[in-house]
């Protein structure tokens, strides 16, 4: 497999997470204070970089078969979680993720919190809000980078995809100074769920000893089949009568699941 599908998959998955982190950072920075917000973000980025630096090279030392079995299983479970939520959102059984509402909620909470300085940080609330937001969203990015990079024995390409996503979102965020509410985040989450589930299924089965027909080319069939089945479930659920649709509500910054 070439590096391009790997870079693109990691890029799209990381854009979604970076947008959610940006919403929290903007809420902390614009409402409270930028210095403490940047300090929290910087510490979280250092922690995330350390995790990749330690786990990245370690994971590539493991035998490929065992790695594919374990990581494939984790990725399939993780991907199915994304896909399940994306289908429930697309059919109105779960609230859509709305960055504008999430931003307003974070701003309201940030305005209500008292200012206190601790450990050399002038605004502890802004620091912790930014740190937790970037760390929690970043952990999903790290998980995707390590699993995809490790399985493809190409950690560099996975890191490039993730870094490009963070850079694009950060530059756009600085330019517009507002949450990126117009990005089709829910549709992107659907696509990411399809990709994570497909790659997880492919690698997991390979790790269990399966020989895929067509080898790597099987992914070119598996990805569209996963997409078709997911769209089929979406159509089926949309056709079912139900008691009521969920109203769009924001996610909390505490929420780590997609």
């Amino acid at each position, binding site marked *: 497999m070439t590096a391009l599908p790997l870079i693109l998959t990691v890029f799209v998955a990381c854009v979604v997470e970076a947008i959610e982190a940006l919403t929290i950072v903007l809420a902390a920075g614009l409402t409270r204070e930028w210095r403490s917000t940047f300090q929290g973000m910087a510490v979280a980025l250092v922690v995330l970089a350390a995790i990749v630096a330690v786990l990245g090279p370690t994971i590539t030392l493991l035998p490929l078969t065992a790695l594919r079995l374990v990581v494939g299983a984790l990725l399939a479970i993780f991907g199915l979680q994304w*896909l*399940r939520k994306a289908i429930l959102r697309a059919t109105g059984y779960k609230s859509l993720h709305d960055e504008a509402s999430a931003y307003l909620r974070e701003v309201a909470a940030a305005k209500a919190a008292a200012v206190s300085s601790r450990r050399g940080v002038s605004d502890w609330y802004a620091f912790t809000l930014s740190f937790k937001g970037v760390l929690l969203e970043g952990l999903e990015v790290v998980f995707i980078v390590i699993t995809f990079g490790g399985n493809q024995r190409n950690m560099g390409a996975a890191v490039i995809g993730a870094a490009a996503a963070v850079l694009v979102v950060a530059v756009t965020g600085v330019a517009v100074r507002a949450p990126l509410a117009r990005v089709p985040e829910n549709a992107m989450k659907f696509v990411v769920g399809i990709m994570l589930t497909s790659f997880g299924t492919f690698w997991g089965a390979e790790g269990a000893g*399966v020989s895929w027909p067509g080898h790597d080319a099987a992914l070119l069939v598996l990805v569209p*089949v*996963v997409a078709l089945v997911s769209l089929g*479930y979406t159509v089926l659920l949309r056709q079912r009568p*139900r008691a009521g649709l969920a109203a769009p509500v924001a996610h909390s910054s505490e929420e780590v699941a997609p």
Partner: protein
Amino acid sequence: MRRLKSIGAFWYDFVVGDDWRVAVVVVVALALTALFVHAAGVNVWWLLPVCVFVGLGWSLRRATAGRRS
């Protein structure tokens, strides 16, 4: 102890999420795949995808079952 529990809960929520049955389906399907391939010598490449689709459908059905009018 409480900190350890919260770390465990965080990672459970991070990987497994809302429906643990999906995780069980994937693990059992992988175990069966390995069993067929290594013990019986049958290349059951289709087994995991089928189980993934069935597991997803089952989980969606459970999540939406109580919401019918």
